[in-house]
């Protein structure tokens, strides 16, 4: 199992109020699969993603990623884990405005041991001709393409996508999902995506429905739907 989470708990305390965000989550995902976590706002999906991505830590439970228990890693090891193994795609792209498209990709390749070629990833996301543009000069969809290119330029073991189509229109969203599927196939990258759009679940190998910090339903798609055929 590539991702093996069991009995993961997480709570936040604000003053005297303690909020349990994750209440003993358990989930598994095989290598090179696409997983989708579905859930409404406040269900804990972002917290779960942050813990898997090494940005946050669970209070208890086990989080094993590619045979490494990341919940026990110290800060330095956790930084190394993010640096080497994880790619992030955000809802609002989070590109660095002062850098060009090519340079935004270099932000990650600069610290990777064996990054892919910048031009190759730009060609893969069909943004080769925009290499010298600044993010301000791109549409939302184009920015998300760059964000995806930036995430997989280091050829990560796991690509974490936080609402990657949340800020995009239907057609653009579909093209982004196609791109993610393409990356998954071409580079064999395991992808874990969180979304509140149930239609996207059709392209995933495994789907986890989250509600109030608990997985209320888990399903496996024997046949995944190509992104271009997804509608909502």
């Amino acid at each position, binding site marked *: 199992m590539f991702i093996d989470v069991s009995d993961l708990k997480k709570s936040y305390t604000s003053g005297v109020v303690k909020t349990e965000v994750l209440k003993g989550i358990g989930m598994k995902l095989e290598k090179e699969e696409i997983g989708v976590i579905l859930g409404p706002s406040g269900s804990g999906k*972002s917290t779960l993603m*942050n813990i898997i*991505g090494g*940005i*946050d830590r669970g209070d208890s439970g086990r989080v094993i990623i590619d045979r490494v228990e990341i919940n026990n890693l110290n800060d*330095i090891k956790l*930084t*190394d*884990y*993010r*640096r*080497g193994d*994880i790619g*992030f795609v*955000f*809802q*609002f*792209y*989070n*590109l*660095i*405005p*002062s*850098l*060009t498209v*090519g*340079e935004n990709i*270099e*932000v*990650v*390749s*600069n*610290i990777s041991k064996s990054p892919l070629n910048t031009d190759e990833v730009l060609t893969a996301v069909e943004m080769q001709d925009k290499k010298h543009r*600044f*993010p*301000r*000069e*791109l549409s939302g969809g184009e*920015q998300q393409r760059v964000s995806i290119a930036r995430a997989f330029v280091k050829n990560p073991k796991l690509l974490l996508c*936080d609402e990657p189509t949340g*800020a995009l229109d239907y057609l653009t969203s579909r093209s982004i999902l196609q791109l993610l599927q393409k990356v998954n196939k071409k580079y064999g990258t395991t992808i874990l995506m969180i979304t509140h759009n149930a239609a996207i679940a059709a392209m995933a190998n495994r789907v986890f429905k989250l509600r109030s910090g608990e997985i209320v339903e888990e399903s496996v798609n024997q046949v995944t739907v190509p992104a271009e055929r997804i509608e909502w």
Partner: protein
Amino acid sequence: MSINKRVKRVLLENKAQYIGSILLIIFSCFTFTLMSQFAGNFERLANEFQKGYVQEDASFTTDKKIDNLQELESTANAVIEEGKTFDYKLSEGETLRIFSRNDRVNLPAILEGKGLSRSGDILISPTFAAANNYKIGDELRILDKSFTIAGFVTLPNYIYPVQSEMDMMPPPGFGIAVISKEDFATLGRGSSFYAVKFNQTAQNSHAQSLEFKELLASSGIDIAQWTDIEDNKRVNIVAAEVDILNLVSKGIPAGIMLLASIMVCGVISRMINRESTIIGALYALGYRRKEIYRHYLIFPLLIAVIGGIIGTVLGTFPVRSMAAFMLSAFIMPLTGIDLNPGMMIVSLLLPIFFLGCSGYFVIRKELKHSPVELMRGKKETNKVNFLERGLKLEKLRFPAKFKIRGQLRSLSRLTFLLVGIVAATMLLLWGFTLKSGFDYLLSEGSLASVYPFEYEYKFDSLRYDPLPTGAEPGSAALFLRSGEEKRDFYICGIMPDSTMVTLADESGARLSTNQVIITKPLANQLKLKQGDAVNIVRKLDGRIFDLKIDSIADTYAGKFIFMPLAEYNEKFEMPTGSYTGAFSNVPLDIPENQSYSVITLDDKLAGVKEAIAPTQSMIGVLATIAFIIGMIVIYVVTSLIVEENKNIISLMKIFGYRKKEINSLILNSSTIVVVIGYIIGIPLTFSAIGVLTQSLENSVGLTLPPMRIDLPYILIGFVFVMFSYELSKLLCKKKVNAVSMSEALKAGME
């Protein structure tokens, strides 16, 4: 307005930026108030002294005693008083220029102690007393007569008591003394000179001088030497000092005020950008544009008022101490300090005007957008500035690209940092340039090597006697370029193939003194090249001559034209074989009845060394100011960079960047700007000093040390600026470490 309640909270949230701005305003108003109040008082004290103690309009010596002074006075409508003086060497390194007490012109001002009340009383200058440990009541022995120091004195024609007119600073071993006319007569030494004060003050004193000289000539009196008060280096330096103070009191505060304005505008503009959604919401809730303007204007105005009041009040305290300090060099009575309320009001209003105007324009620019645009969160879509667009950085490594891009993203921030570093550099290098100039004058390469003689004698009348081996005769007179009234210079007749004046051309080749040679600073001032001819006017009698320049000497030791003595005598119609001075390596045995003054090379060097002491304290003060400005600017800019790059820092942490790598990319991004700012500051310092020197040369013909800066000082200055930079980075490191990874997860960037 209830939204104004948040002003205090906003100020406290961004303490560093606002405190930095307030400090700059305090500093600016402090400098303005101190300098302008001091300059006003200094000018007033000088005027009071010059009027109250009847400063001469001119002094002169003649070939023979004037017998009909009263008649001459009524014809010329002037007061004329004969004075007597001679230089007396008290001991090795201690020379007093003794004057007989005047009653009508150049009256002595008692600074401490009492006046001359009985025979044997003597008044001496306070600087000489301090430097050589003399106290009131001490005995002095002059030509076998015993004198008691009754008090300390200054004369209105010796405010800045240099020994020779060619000196830059008064040597510590030189001072003036005043004794009664009766005591002076019993000493049986000294030469006469006349001080004249014209009664018609409204008339041009230069024209009055000319008329008076004609009157003397018509009375059969030949003038041996004439010095108008405007040309008296012991007096006109006061005017130069007032000029410098006026320049500095405007220049430095204006520069700092500009920095503060850029900084406050940057901070406010960013604040409005950050708060655009709140502003949009306020519009939607019914707030008027005027009310929003007023709210945001509170920030710059508050900074201006707080900084203005503190700076102005603080600036008034050291005026008296500064006056006392300055009057120990420019010796005048300190009768009192008057604070000019007008200048204090200007000091308070200046920052309000500067910050108010600049703040208003920034707010107007930011609030131009519609409420909808503001509520959506105003973003500078599609705006890529020309520098970002123009720079091709592909070939650079990523960290270099990242840092350059980070700086270019905000041109206002970049300008502020650059201007701040340039300002700090200029202040720092200003002091170092002066120090380098003095070092050069002291070094073997200058005074001592150009003028390798020990003694410089100046005789009050023409001499013809041959001089002993080791001494050379010479003559000198003051000239002006035809058409000019200021910026006079000496033409010196020296021996052909002189060994006492050694000049070299630009290539370093020794120049024969058997030709007309002009020193480089004078050639630059008169814009003369080798082979040029120049029309010159002898100041003594206004006669015009023409002179052809044969060579230019590459030396900064003074503004002179040298020519062979015989040619000098012929050209300027002086008696053949005559001379008025001597350069010598041995003390000359001059007959008792011949009046003269002598200055040694050691005295000159001591004068330069004396000048270095206050320069060193000045360097300390300038370095501290430079450090504070540098620190404020760099710290504020670095804080802004951290603040503006919170999301990027957060993102980098998510991507797995280590602390060291993030610190290097974010905090070191200003290194190149700091280095460029420092480099730009070097030529700008020279230009600024050049302007100052030019203005001084134009106003009083003062020659300052050569403008140069030695490499070690450039390096020390660089280390100094980099140290303040590193310190600011260290303070900001904590801020970088405190940025959490959730910042990037919360917000989108574009």
